[in-house]
């Protein structure tokens, strides 16, 4: 006999099963309302009966009589019927399923006493049962005035469900994890065996010292064993990753089902007609992310119906289909999830947005007129912003979109809106999905190493000068007969002067329909990497979609292909002849480089950085600089050696070189000037802000001398 505590635990466990059953049942009910054809209706009806039957059986076993009675009546309503369900019956069905779920949760948490009586709902269902079969559309129409139709007011929209902190895991997944665990134990036993052998060898050595040949043979054996263990550990780790991935991800379609319901309820509440379709529902994403997104997506769908779609008669007048189209599109690029909620309604009313912005004191009349359409549309994500004069029961006064934006940003994502008057609105959420890995191509440019998602990469080849075409202010490369805009990646990232050289590597890539080409120094072997969100303080950097952790723990900034495509297309290729106000800072201290850069950029210089003398010379071979600021004490090549090397370069004799040092000795100053430096400064003097003045003076002296 189960104890009271056992029973309560079973009821708690049943809550998540009931949730899944009610969701599946709701999906079939919605499919029955507007089936694509008779066979689809039959299939939906069969599946619905099966889900309801399971719900009824489990509830009865656990003594949840109210839930059992609801499920029993719902099952009776659909069993043996034919054809679609009418809207009134669907309303009642959905209300009954919601009620079942609420009741199961209340039983699970011990709050059943606070539940309202179930009898009114059961009576409504009995009334519907006593009318002709729901499959008969005409008969069903007669049912609509019965309590099957919900009470006055909008149909209850599906509430954003409380966070379910537990996950249901299939037996298959558990078995797979057990397998991995067994293999880890096996691996451990093998290591223990080898350790035992090593102990025996060591004891033997105490008796008779081994020869060099024997030691060598022994070490070779140890190396071989360690290699095998490492390889096996890699395989086990991969399997563990796969098992965890399958547990921690869910198809996006699981969220889409709730949205179907939200769209239907919103349409019923507003007297509109809407059909929601989805693209990409099969994609698997981090289930925690999906849980976090459920609320924002419901907001967006309700908002699209309430504010986006026009009433049926208005749509017909505008030459559109009576039923408004809502489209949810999901796309996974690398570890980045894009979700778009679009409607084919009237689009955003720019005049109303302007008026609201002024009325709410967000912007002045002149400022609002100067805004671009894109910036203007972003105002809808401001707190409390709504162009509606009346509050709607469904979406309120625009409260919601700011909540959506806040939630998406909290998850490390971005939100954007695009609207065309008379044609509709699209709201796009781009979020980092934290689970799983994506292939990334590491690209080296100067001292920087960044990654590009392989999914964006088309080809990698050598730069062929005959294929590079220079127009007045831009470069293009001919790829398969098409002229593709070309940029030096180092130039785009502002780590060096952009010059395209023959020995460099060409990466042709694509973002959506936009092709672009990048010149890089080196392309390394691609790796499957998990891309993590940028820390909050640098998340606004649009150039990156995240950071990947490389073997050994180093971080690899991963480029955002959309940013690269836009940057390549939008940037003019600076010509190498230009040299006005360009400074090169050479220091092996990261802090010193950053500090000099800040000071010089504030003074109007364009600054490039080098962490060593060798890298500095590479910069100087690529382009002319108006001044070189180098540290005195650097590893490998110090500031004095670098100064002498600069003087040896073509055109380097007249480049102003300023040597900076943490030491304040006069001897250091004398040595720097003797090596050919134009000036010497201590870092303390730099901290007082003297650097820009000294650089300007050195440039002026050189020009005066010329």
């Amino acid at each position, binding site marked *: 006999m189960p104890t009271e505590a056992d029973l309560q635990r079973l009821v708690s466990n049943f809550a998540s099963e009931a949730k899944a059953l009610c969701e599946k049942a709701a999906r079939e009910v919605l499919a029955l309302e507007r089936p694509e054809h008779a066979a689809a209706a039959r299939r939906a009806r069969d599946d619905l009966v099966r889900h309801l039957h399971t719900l009824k059986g489990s509830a009865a076993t656990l003594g949840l009589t109210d839930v059992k009675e609801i499920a029993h009546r719902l099952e009776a309503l659909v069993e043996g019927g034919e054809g679609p369900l009418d809207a009134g019956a669907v309303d009642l069905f959905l209300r009954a399923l919601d009620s079942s779920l609420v009741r199961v949760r209340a039983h699970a948490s011990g709050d059943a006493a606070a539940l309202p009586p179930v009898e009114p709902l059961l009576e409504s269902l009995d009334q519907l049962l006593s009318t002709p079969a729901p499959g008969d559309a005409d008969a069903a129409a007669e049912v609509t005035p019965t309590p099957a139709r919900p009470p006055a007011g909008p149909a209850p929209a599906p509430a954003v469900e409380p966070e379910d902190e537990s996950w249901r895991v299939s037996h298959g997944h558990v078995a797979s994890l057990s397998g991995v665990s067994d293999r880890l134990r096996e691996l451990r036993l093998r290591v223990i065996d080898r350790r035992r052998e090593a102990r025996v060898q060591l004891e033997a050595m105490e008796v008779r010292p081994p020869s060099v040949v024997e030691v060598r043979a022994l070490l070779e054996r140890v190396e071989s064993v360690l290699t095998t263990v490492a390889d096996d550990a890699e395989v086990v780790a991969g399997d563990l990753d796969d098992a965890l991935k399958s547990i921690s991800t869910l198809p996006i379609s699981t969220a889409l089902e709730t949205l179907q319901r939200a769209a239907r309820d919103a349409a019923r509440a507003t007297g509109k007609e809407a059909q929601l379709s989805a693209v990409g529902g099969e994609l698997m994403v981090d289930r925690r992310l999906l849980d976090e997104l459920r609320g924002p997506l419901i907001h967006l769908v309700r908002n699209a119906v309430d504010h986006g779609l026009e009433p049926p008669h208005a749509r017909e007048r505008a030459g559109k289909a009576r039923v408004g189209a809502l489209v949810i599109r999901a796309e996974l690029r690398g570890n980045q999830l894009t979700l778009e909620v679009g409607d084919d309604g009237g689009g955003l009313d720019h005049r109303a947005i302007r008026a609201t912005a002024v009325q709410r004191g967000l912007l002045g009349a002149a400022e609002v007129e100067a805004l671009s359409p894109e910036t203007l549309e972003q105002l809808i994500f401001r707190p409390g912003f709504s162009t509606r004069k009346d509050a709607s029961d469904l979406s309120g006064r625009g409260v919601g979109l700011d909540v959506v934006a806040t939630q998406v940003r909290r998850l490390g994502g971005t939100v954007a809106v695009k609207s065309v008057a008379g044609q509709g609105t699209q709201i796009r959420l781009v979020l980092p999905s934290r689970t799983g890995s994506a292939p990334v191509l590491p690209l080296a440019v100067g*001292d*920087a190493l*960044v990654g590009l998602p392989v999914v964006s990469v088309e080809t990698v080849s050598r730069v062929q000068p005959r294929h590079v075409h220079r127009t007045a202010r831009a470069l293009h490369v001919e790829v398969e007969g098409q002229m593709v805009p070309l940029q030096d990646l180092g130039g785009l*990232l*502002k*780590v060096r002067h952009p010059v395209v050289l023959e020995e460099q590597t060409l990466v042709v890539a694509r973002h959506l329909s936009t092709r672009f080409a990048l010149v890089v120094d080196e392309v390394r072997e691609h790796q499957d990497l998990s891309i*993590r969100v*940028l*820390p*909050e*303080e*640098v998340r606004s*950097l649009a*150039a*990156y979609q995240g*950071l990947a*952790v490389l073997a050994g*723990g*180093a*971080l*690899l*900034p991963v480029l955002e292909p959309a940013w690269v495509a836009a940057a390549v297309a939008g940037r003019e290729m600076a010509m190498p002849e230009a040299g006005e106000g360009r400074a090169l800072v050479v*220091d092996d*201290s*990261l*802090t*010193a480089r*950053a*500090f000099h*850069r*800040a*000071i010089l*950029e*504030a003074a109007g210089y364009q600054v490039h950085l080098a962490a060593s003398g060798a890298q500095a010379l590479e910069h100087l071979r690529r382009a002319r600089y108006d001044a070189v600021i180098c540290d005195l004490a650097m590893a490998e090549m110090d500031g004095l050696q670098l100064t002498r090397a600069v003087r040896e370069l073509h055109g380097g004799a007249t480049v102003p070189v300023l040597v900076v040092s*943490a030491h304040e000795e006069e001897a250091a100053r004398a040595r720097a000037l003797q090596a050919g430096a134009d000036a010497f400064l201590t*870092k*303390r003097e*730099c*901290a007082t*802000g003297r650097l820009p003045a000294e650089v300007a003076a050195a440039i002026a002296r050189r020009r005066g001398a010329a």
Partner: protein
Amino acid sequence: MTDDPGWDGLTAEDALLLSMRAERLRALPTSQEAEVQFWAAEFPIGQETFALPLAALRGCAPLRLVTPLPLAPPHVLGVARFQGEIVTAFSLTMLLGARSWGADPFVLVVVRLSGGQTVALDCEQVPVQVEIPRSEVDRQAPGPHDLSAPVVVPGPRVIHLIDVERLTRRVQEGSGADRG
């Protein structure tokens, strides 16, 4: 006061600051044992000594672990991994408004800000623990645009105690040096 030859070459603001410090030193309690202590971690920046409340400190890491992030603002040195978390590394010299500079920093001090987020700051030396009389901490407040307030510790020495609330705001806003 400006007639005193000892004050030659000082601005009125510096002279005032020094006289305030002297006054505080004179007012130090004679019985240090009775004083409630505030724990901090001190480190030099150039000629001056700064300190962070020990409670805000999460650990230290080598500066070479920082990966520079091209296109980031100058006061952002880059990003680094610390105990599995990815944190942004800032130049403390720049956040403080570049008051002075001694040796090149080689260590990262990892700090939990008042908003809960963790960031790393570069440092010239590994910080060491210091006790500051609580009364001294309570008496001092940073100037309206400062990140730190000068406090006097036994020795006597002056330490600039960094206000974590203000540091949080400065991190969020960007550094004074960035704004030029």
